[in-house]
């Protein structure tokens, strides 16, 4: 077999350099810097720093507020991941049955994907506006005096709803193309073998969607943990006060508002470890199975 190759090592190296530089400057360098500063206590007024060893980490463990935020982050991620996957799957299954107008559906849903998170957050603010927001009125119908940015539960609910709404299109597109890649004859064979449509869905369709679903699960957890920053920032209107927040938001808050760079760095190192863990988990499982052909 003939293999294309380079005569010297220099050209491929030169071609790789821009990419490597981007990774180094925007990832490794700040990551290394965060790791280093997580062992120091910065003077709030910028007059030098003192080495404190693992103290920034141990104090996280004892910090009640940190634990509360971590608890909320877990709950938030679970809810956002679950609802954005479940609703998207439901929509995809419905859209898959529609042959006419399927393109229109897809395009309409894709628009939401193109909205930047902070903009989604501001749209959320409109929806949850104290006096004119339709969703505020909706909750008021059920006797819930919905106060965005004031009431902890109200803000949390809004954060979940906006984050889910923003993420549904991506999941929908993946689920729909997953559904459409299942051979028609396999579904027809199942129609002859099984009378129940629900049974067919869970025993044939869903297992064949599993690779897609698993991939999306990881994507969605990552999204809920990290990419919802803009939504959260917009919805709490810059007033952390009594509002819920996720760990990523707290890193920003402690580091840039609270000027506790050491503590904030320690928190971001913890988050980096979490991402690493998720990635390893994903690769291991993807390698292991869930491919059928």
């Amino acid at each position: 077999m003939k293999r294309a190759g380079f005569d010297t090592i220099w050209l491929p190296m030169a071609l790789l350099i821009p990419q490597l530089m981007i990774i180094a400057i925007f990832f490794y360098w700040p990551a290394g810097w965060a790791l280093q500063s997580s062992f120091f206590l910065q003077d709030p007024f910028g007059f030098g720093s003192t080495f404190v060893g693992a103290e920034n980490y141990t104090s996280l463990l004892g910090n009640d507020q940190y634990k509360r935020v971590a608890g909320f982050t877990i709950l938030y991620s679970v809810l956002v991941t679950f609802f954005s996957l479940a609703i998207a799957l439901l929509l995809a299954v419905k859209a898959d049955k529609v042959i006419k107008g399927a393109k229109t559906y897809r395009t309409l849903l894709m628009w939401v994907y193109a909205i930047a998170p902070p903009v989604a957050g501001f749209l959320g603010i409109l929806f949850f506006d104290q006096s004119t927001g339709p969703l505020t009125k909706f909750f008021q119908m059920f006797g819930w005096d919905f106060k965005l940015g004031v009431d902890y539960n109200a803000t949390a609910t809004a954060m979940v709803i906006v984050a889910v709404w923003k993420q549904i299109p991506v999941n929908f597109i993946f689920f729909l193309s997953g559904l459409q890649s299942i051979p028609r004859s396999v579904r027809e064979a199942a129609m002859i073998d099984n009378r129940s449509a629900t049974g067919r869905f869970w025993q044939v369709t869903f297992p064949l969607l599993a690779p897609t679903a698993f991939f999306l699960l990881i994507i969605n957890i990552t999204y809920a943990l990290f990419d919802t920053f803009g939504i959260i920032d917009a919805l709490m209107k810059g007033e952390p006060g009594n509002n819920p927040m996720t760990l990523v938001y707290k890193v920003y808050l402690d580091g840039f508002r609270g000027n506790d760079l050491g503590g904030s760095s320690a928190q971001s190192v913890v988050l980096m470890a979490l991402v690493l863990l998720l990635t390893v988990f994903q690769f291991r499982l993807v390698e292991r199975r869930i491919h059928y052909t």
Partner: protein
Amino acid sequence: MAQVSLEGIRKVYPNGFRAVQTTSFTIQDGEFVVLVGPSGCGKSTLLRMIAGLEEITEGVLKIGDRVVNDVDPADRDIAMVFQNYALYPHMTVRKNIGYGLKNRGTPAAAIDAKVQDAARMLNLTEYLDRKPAQLSGGQRQRVAMGRAVVRDPALFLFDEPLSNLDAKLRNQMRIEIKALQRRLGTTAVYVTHDQVEAMTMADRIIVLNEGRIEQIGTPSEIYHNPASTFVASFMGAPPMNLIKAELDQQSVRINGCRDLIHAPQSFDGPVTLGIRPEDVEVDEQGLVSFHVDILEELGAHRLLHGRIANQPFSVMLGKDDAAQVGETKINLKPEALRLFDRETGLRL
């Protein structure tokens, strides 16, 4: 086991395409019927209507004594083998075969026994715990067969089940499927575009063309007495020779030639004359002149391809008959002559 009857069945697809024209026929209990025709003639559409996978636009479909037009595919007591096998990729062979039984509430022990039986019958026993991706094409085909036979349905439906196999395996499976159907005595409808499969497997053949039935008959009837020039040219390899001729009472005059042949029936006017290549003899004293262009050596016999009065014509000879390229004389066996209307292509 059951009789299947189609009464005035028609199919118009939602886009307005008329895939099957009004069609009626009955399949006897235990009969093996082959639907054959060129690609796109509506074979699959017809089969899928019987299966319940495609809505019937008009007409009545009965399986046994029951009208099944509005019956769910799972409740029609049918089993279907698909061209690409349509196995469930995430299930083992065992689960694939047993899935239909499980959903019909068969007890686990009974499912197991039936799956074992089917697997033994199809030489799949050692593959029961594999997934379809770990099987060869022929083995997948067997699993698809197993999935059908294990349920002991009233009716087997096959949609080109052998067309993804290589020629050798195809010949072998052809015989096995036929033998299996004989043994089980289950009514079967088999769709193929391959006339050899149709001829060898069928009790009765239904020849379809552009959504219409051209002819229904036993393989021998279809072969020897084609109802139209379409059937004559579609069935048999090489196909029946079809040449333009004039008929005057019982005398046939082949276009532009003076040769006269005695026809088996009387008619006046232009006709299409049909004769199978094996019903022609090479004879020094023959009445018809035949120009041989190509000689094809096939071992068991020889094919001469050439022209009669500038119309393509083929002759099949035994392996011991002498033949050579160039001008020669032939005789057409009078009793083998078939006459078709020049305009409509229908048998006279």
